C-alpha cells in the first residue's frame, strides 16, 4: 500500500518540477510583461536541443550545460523583447491591443523558431541517455535522471524565488507585476524590467527543456507546443505570478498525468484539458489565489 | 407606479462592502438624483440594476418583475437602459449604426426598415447628432460621445434610463445643453435616475434626491430638504 502510494506520489512529482519551472517562466511573460507567448514551448525545445548538441557533440554533461544555457537564453529573450515587443508596446493603441498584437507576434516567433530548428537539426527524433540507471526507493523503482531533474527544478525554482524576494531587480519585477505605471513613477525603468522578465521567462523555458532532455524523452522540433499548453494550464491552476502556486500546480498536473497514463495511456493531454476547461469556467484566477 | 424597487440590496467585493442593505424605490415618470461622495457605491448600484453585477442579497424589481438574476441584455430589452461613467461608445462604428444597434436589439418589437430609419433619424435629431450621423464614434468630441450613448440607449425605447455622470468632463455650455436634454427626455415620459456630481444640475432637474455614503442610504428627499439636511452637509456638501 505504502509502496503504491510512494510510487504514484514520486512518479507524479518527477515531471511536476519541470512543469512548474516552465509555468513560472510563462507566468513571468504573461503576468508581468503581458505577452501571451505562444512560442514558449519553442524555447523549451531549443533548450532541449542545445543540451543534446552539447552532450552528443562536445560531451558536456547536461547539468554543466546549465551554465551556458541559462545566460544564453536569458539574453536571447531579453534581446527579442527589446527588438520586437518594446516597439510594439509603444505602437499599440491600448493594453488590450498590445496583448493581442504581442500574441500574434509570438505566433510569428513560433513559426520562425520551429522551422529554424527543423532546418538546423532536421526532423528525425533524437535523444540521449544520461544517468539512466535505476534507483530503488522503498520498493519502487525510478530512473536516477528523473530524480536529479526533480531536485534541480526545485533548486532552480527556489533560487528564483529568493531572487525575487531579496534583490533590487526582484523587487522591481514584483512592483511592475502589481502596477507598471506606479512602478514607473517610483523610478523603475519599466521597459528594462519587462525585458528582463521576458528574458527570465525564456531562460526558465530553456532550463525546463534542458531538464526534459535529461529524462530520456524523444526530442523533435515540434515537441514544444504541448509544453506551452501545459505551462498555460499550470499557470491557471496555480495563479498567475504565484511561484509557489506554480509548483503546487505543476505537481498536481504531474500527478494527474502519471495516474492517467498508468490507467489509459494517450489520454493525459485530454485529462489536462478537462482540468483546464473546468478551471477556466469555475475559477479562472486559479485554485491557489486568495 | 413604482417602476424600480430595491429591497435589502447588498454587494461585497472580497472584504469590501460596496452596498449594504439598501432599500429604495423610483416612481414612474420621476427624475431621481443619486449623489454621494466618491466610492459611495453609486455606480455599483447602477451595475446591480442593469445586470452588470449580481447582488449578493436582496431583490431588484423593475415594473413589478424580479430582475435580480437576469443578464444585461434581457434587462435592456425589458426597457431599462443606461449610460456609463467612462463613455463606452464604439469608436470605429458610425454614429447612425450605434442608434441602429440600440433600435434593433434594445426592444422586442423592432419595425420594418422604413420605420426603423425614421425612428433612428428622429432620435438623432432629438439628441442633436443629426449633423454627424456618418462620423465614427471615435472622431466625436466628448460631449457628442455622451449624446451618442444617450441616443443608443433611447433607441431601445426604454421606460427607465440610468445616467451615470452624464455631465462629467463637460464645459459649462455643454452642461447647460445636457441639462436641457435630460429635461426633454423626462418630458417624453422616460423615468430617469441620474448620478451626478454637478450640484447645479441635480438641484434644478431632479424632483427627488437620494444620498449614498459607504453603501448606505443616508438621506432622501426633495432638493430643498437635502440641501438643509445636516448629515448630508457634513458628509458631502461640506467637501
Amino acid at each position, binding site marked *: 500500500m505504502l509502496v503504491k502510494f510512494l510510487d504514484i506520489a514520486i512518479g507524479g512529482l518527477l515531471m511536476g518540477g519541470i512543469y512548474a519551472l516552465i509555468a513560472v517562466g510563462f507566468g513571468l511573460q504573461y503576468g508581468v510583461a503581458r505577452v*501571451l507567448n*505562444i512560442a514558449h514551448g519553442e524555447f523549451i525545445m531549443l533548450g532541449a536541443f542545445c543540451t543534446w548538441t552539447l552532450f552528443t557533440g562536445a560531451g558536456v554533461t547536461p547539468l554543466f550545460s546549465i551554465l551556458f544555457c541559462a545566460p544564453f537564453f536569458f539574453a536571447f529573450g531579453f534581446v527579442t523583447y527589446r527588438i520586437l515587443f518594446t516597439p*510594439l508596446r509603444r*505602437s499599440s493603441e491600448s493594453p488590450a491591443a498590445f*496583448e493581442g*498584437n504581442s*500574441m*500574434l*507576434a509570438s*505566433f*510569428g*516567433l*513560433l*513559426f*520562425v*523558431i*520551429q*522551422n*529554424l530548428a*527543423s*532546418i538546423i537539426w532536421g526532423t528525425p527524433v533524437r535523444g540521449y541517455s544520461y544517468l539512466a540507471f535505476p534507483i530503488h526507493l522503498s520498493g519502487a523503482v525510478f530512473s536516477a535522471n528523473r530524480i536529479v531533474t526533480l531536485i534541480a527544478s526545485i533548486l532552480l525554482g527556489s533560487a528564483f524565488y529568493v531572487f525575487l524576494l531579496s534583490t533590487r531587480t526582484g523587487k522591481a519585477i514584483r512592483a511592475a507585476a502589481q502596477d507598471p505605471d506606479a512602478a514607473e513613477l517610483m523610478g523603475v525603468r519599466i521597459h528594462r524590467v519587462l525585458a528582463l522578465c521576458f528574458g527570465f521567462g525564456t531562460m526558465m523555458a530553456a532550463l525546463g527543456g534542458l531538464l526534459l532532455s535529461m529524462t530520456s524523452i524523444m526530442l523533435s522540433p515540434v515537441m514544444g*507546443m*504541448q509544453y*506551452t*499548453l501545459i505551462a*498555460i494550464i499550470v499557470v*491557471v491552476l496555480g495563479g498567475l505570478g504565484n511561484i509557489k502556486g506554480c509548483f503546487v500546480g505543476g505537481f498536481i498536473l504531474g500527478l494527474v498525468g502519471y495516474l492517467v497514463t498508468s490507467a*489509459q495511456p*494517450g*489520454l493525459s*493531454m*485530454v485529462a489536462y484539458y478537462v482540468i483546464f*476547461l473546468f478551471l*477556466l*469556467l469555475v475559477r479562472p484566477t486559479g485554485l491557489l489565489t486568495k | 407606479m413604482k417602476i424600480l424597487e430595491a429591497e435589502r440590496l447588498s454587494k461585497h467585493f472580497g472584504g469590501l462592502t460596496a452596498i449594504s442593505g439598501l432599500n429604495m424605490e423610483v416612481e414612474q415618470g420621476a427624475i431621481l438624483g443619486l449623489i454621494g461622495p466618491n466610492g459611495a457605491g453609486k455606480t455599483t448600484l447602477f451595475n446591480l440594476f*442593469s445586470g*452588470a453585477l449580481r447582488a449578493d442579497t436582496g431583490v431588484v424589481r423593475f415594473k413589478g418583475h424580479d430582475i435580480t438574476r437576469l*443578464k*444585461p*441584455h434581457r434587462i*435592456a*430589452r425589458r426597457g431599462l*437602459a*443606461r449610460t*456609463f461613467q467612462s463613455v*463606452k*461608445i*464604439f*469608436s*470605429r462604428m458610425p454614429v447612425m449604426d450605434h442608434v*441602429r*444597434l*440600440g433600435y*434593433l*436589439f*434594445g*426592444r422586442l418589437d423592432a419595425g420594418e426598415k422604413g420605420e426603423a430609419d425614421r425612428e433612428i433619424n428622429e432620435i438623432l435629431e432629438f439628441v442633436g447628432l443629426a449633423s454627424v450621423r456618418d462620423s465614427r464614434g471615435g472622431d466625436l468630441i466628448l460631449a457628442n460621445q455622451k449624446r451618442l450613448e444617450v441616443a*443608443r*440607449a433611447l433607441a*431601445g425605447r426604454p421606460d427607465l434610463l440610468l445616467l451615470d455622470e452624464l455631465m462629467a468632463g463637460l464645459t459649462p455650455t455643454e452642461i447647460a445643453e445636457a441639462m436641457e436634454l435630460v429635461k426633454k427626455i423626462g418630458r417624453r415620459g422616460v423615468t430617469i435616475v441620474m448620478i451626478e456630481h454637478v450640484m447645479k444640475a441635480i438641484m434644478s432637474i431632479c424632483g427627488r434626491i437620494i444620498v449614498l455614503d459607504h453603501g448606505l442610504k443616508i438621506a432622501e428627499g426633495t432638493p430643498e430638504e437635502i440641501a438643509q439636511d445636516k448629515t448630508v452637509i457634513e458628509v458631502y456638501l461640506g467637501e
Partner: protein
Amino acid sequence: MKTRAKTYRPFIAAITLLALLVGLPGYMSSYTVILLTNILMYVVLTLSWTIFSGPTGYISLASAAFFGAGVYVSALFSSSLPLPLVAMGGGAASFILALLVGSLTLRLKGMYFTMFTFGLVELVRNSVHWWEVNITGTVGRIILAADNTAIFYSMVAIFVAVLVVSHWITHSRLGLALQAIGESEEAAAHSGVNVTKVKTVTFAVSAFFMGASGATMSMRWTYIDPTTAFNIQFSFMPVLMAIFGGTGHLYAPIAGATVFSLLEEVLTTKFPYYYMLLFGLIMLVVIRFMPHGLEGVIETWRNREKREPSEAA
C-alpha cells in the same frame, strides 16, 4: 455614399471570376485545377476564420479541429454518400462541435479563449486516436477517392457560399452586433445584444465551412488518420493569411490566402522549412509595421487619394 455603379462593380467582378473558375477544368491542365483547389481551400479557411475572428477580435486557433472533423465525417461516409452530402455532413459535424466548444469557452476573456482553442486540436486528436485504438479498433481509415474535378467544383461551391454568407453577415444585424462586441462587449450587452449567443452562433457558422472543406479535401488523400486529419497547420495558416491580408473588407483575407498559398506552392518542394520560416518572418514584419495587413496599406493609400485628390488647377 457609393454611387450605384460603384456598388455593382464588385458583383460584376465576382460573376466574371466565377465564370472563369467554373469553366476552368475545360481549358486548364489538371495540375492547375489541383493548384486552384488548394488555393480555394486556404481562401475558404481564411474567409471562414475571418467571419468570426475578424469583427470580434477573438483569435481562434481551433480551425484545424473543425477541418479535421470534416475529414473524419468524410472517412465515415464517403463510400455511402455522394460528395455534396458528405461535404454538408462534414460542415454539420463541425457546426455542432463549434456550438459545443463555443458555448463553453466563449464566456471567457479573449486571451483564455485563444489559449483554449490552441490546445483544442491536440485534445480532439488525442481523443479520436484513443477512441480509434480502444473502441473502433481501426487507426486510420480509407477514403473513397473522388475525381479532381468534382473536388474542385465542390470547393468552388463552398467558396461562393462563404462569400455570400460573409457578405450577408457583414450587412445584417448580426454583423452590427459582432462589430459592437468587438469594441465593447459590455456596451453591446447593455444595448440588448445576447453576446454569448451571437458569438457562439457565428463561431459555429465559421466552423461549418471549415468542416465542409475538410470533408471535400480529404477525398484527395485516400488514407487518413488522426495525425493527418488534425494537423495544427490548418489552424495556423488561416491566422497568418488573415493577418497578412487584413480582415476588414472581403477582398483582404482572399488576397492574403492567395498570396501565401501561391508562395507555399512555389517554395514547398525546393525549400520545405524555409518557406514556413519566411511566413513567420513576414508575420513578424506585418505585426510590427503594418498591423492591419495589406488591406491597411491599401486603405490608407485609398483614403489619402480621397482626401487629397490630384492637384488639378
